[in-house]
C-alpha cells in the first residue's frame, strides 16, 4: 500500500496516514486479514513520529477498518471498503472546508441541505 503525507498540508499528519489506510482498504491493495507494517516501521520510512502513526491506526481502528492486536500488530478487518472510501472523502472534504475557512457546523449544515 501507498503511504503519503504532506507536512505542509492543513490536514494533521495522523489524519493523512489514516487516509492512506482507508484508501488502501477501499482500493483493496490490502486484504482482510493482512497485517499492516508496525507503527515504528512506517514512522521510520516517512520520517514521522511513531506516535503519529499509532494515532492514525487508532483512528481507523475506531472506524472498524483494522484491529490492533497485542503481539500481532494492526490487522485489516474491513469488510466494507465502501465505508473506507466515504471516510476518505469526508476527511478530504473537512480539510478543504478548513482551507477556505468554513467551520464544521457550516459544513454539517451544507451536507444537511444537500441530502
Amino acid at each position, binding site marked *: *500500500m501507498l503511504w503519503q503525507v504532506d507536512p505542509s498540508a492543513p490536514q494533521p499528519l495522523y489524519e493523512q496516514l489514516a487516509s492512506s489506510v482507508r484508501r488502501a482498504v477501499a482500493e483493496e491493495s490490502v486484504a482482510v486479514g493482512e497485517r499492516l507494517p508496525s507503527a515504528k516501521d512506517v514512522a521510520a520510512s*516517512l520520517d514521522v513520529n511513531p506516535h503519529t502513526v499509532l494515532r492514525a491506526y487508532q483512528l481507523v481502528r475506531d472506524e472498524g477498518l483494522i484491529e490492533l492486536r497485542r503481539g500481532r500488530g494492526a490487522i485489516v478487518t474491513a469488510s466494507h471498503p465502501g465505508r473506507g472510501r466515504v471516510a476518505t472523502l469526508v476527511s478530504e472534504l473537512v480539510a478543504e472546508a478548513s482551507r477556505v475557512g468554513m467551520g464544521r457546523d457550516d459544513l454539517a449544515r451544507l451536507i444537511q441541505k444537500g441530502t
Partner: protein
Amino acid sequence: MPTPRGHQPAELAPAHVTLVPLAVIAACVGGGAALLWSVRDELPTQIATHWDAAGRADGFSTLTEVLVTDVAFTTVMPLALLGLGLAMRQTRVLGPTSGGLAAFLAVLLFGGAFAQRGIEAPSSAGVDLALWLAYAAGILVGVSLWLVTRRRTRPAAEPGLSLPPGAPVLATPATTKVAWTGSLRRPVNTLVPLGLGGVLVLGSVALGVATGALALWLPTAAIFAAVFGFLYATIEARVTIDAGGVRARGLGVVPLATIPLSAIENATLAHVDPLRDFGGWGLRGGFDGSWGLVTAKGDALRLERAGDSPYYLTVTDAAAAAAAVNTLIGRHSGVGEDRSSS
C-alpha cells in the same frame, strides 16, 4: 501495462570471478589425487567407496578405480556448475558454489579413501567424519570464494536520467513524503514448504535413529532445514520502498534484498513466470542474468539497476510500487517532480 521482459543480457563479470573458482577446482582435483597417490602403499587393496543408510561400507574399488572416479566427479560436476554460471551470467554466485562443491567432493571422495590408510578390513571403514569435514570444507571454500569475487562497489545511476515513456509515477507535490509497503505474492499456502521441509528433516533424523547412524544423517537434516527455512522466509517476505531504497526482509527480519535508490535508474511493470524465467521460485537468478524474488506468476516490479542486471520482485500491487520508486528516485536525482500520473 506490463512491459515485455526482454532486455539486454547482463554483462559478464570480470575474468577473475571465473578464473579463481576454476583454480580452486583444479587445486581440489590435483591436490586430492596427489594426496591419495602419495599414500598408495598404505591403502588396502580394496578401498570402501559406498556406504548404506546405516553407514556400513557395502561397495569397494581398487585404487585405480577410485582415482579415476574421484577425479571425474570432482572435475565434471563443479565445471558443469561453473559453465552454467557463465551461460546464465551468474558467475558471482555459481562460481563460488562450484568451488565449494569441488572442495566438498574432494574431501568426501579423496579424503574418505585417504582415511583408510593402514586399515586391515575396509568393511569397517566409516564415512561420518569425512562427510562432516566435507560439508565444512564446502561451506568454507564457497563462502571464501564469494568474499573474494563479490562485487565491491555498485555503480550509481546517472543523475538527471529521464524515465522511459509510460513509466508509472505519482502526481504528488514535492513536499509529500512517499513510502510503499507490501509483501511478495504468495503462490501457495505457506504451510506447504514448511510441511514438506518438516517431513524431510524429521525423516532424515528418524532414518539416522533407526539405522543407528545419526551422525551420518544429521548434516542432511540440517541442510533440509536451512533450504526450506529460507524458502519459507522468502514466501513470507515483506517489502518496503522509501527514501532508503527498496528492501525485502524474510519474515520481516531476514535480509533478502537491499537496493538503494542511487542504484536504480527506473522502475516498471513486467510479467514474470518464475518457472519459465527463473527456473523456480524464491530468491533466483534468471536465465538471462537478472535476479529476482519471484514467488508467483504475474505482474512484478522490475528495477532497472545502474551497471547491473534488472531485479524483479513479484510484489502485491506492483504498479503502485513502481510509481513510488520512480517518484522517489526522481527526487533523489533531482529530476523534475511534477509528471503525469500513473
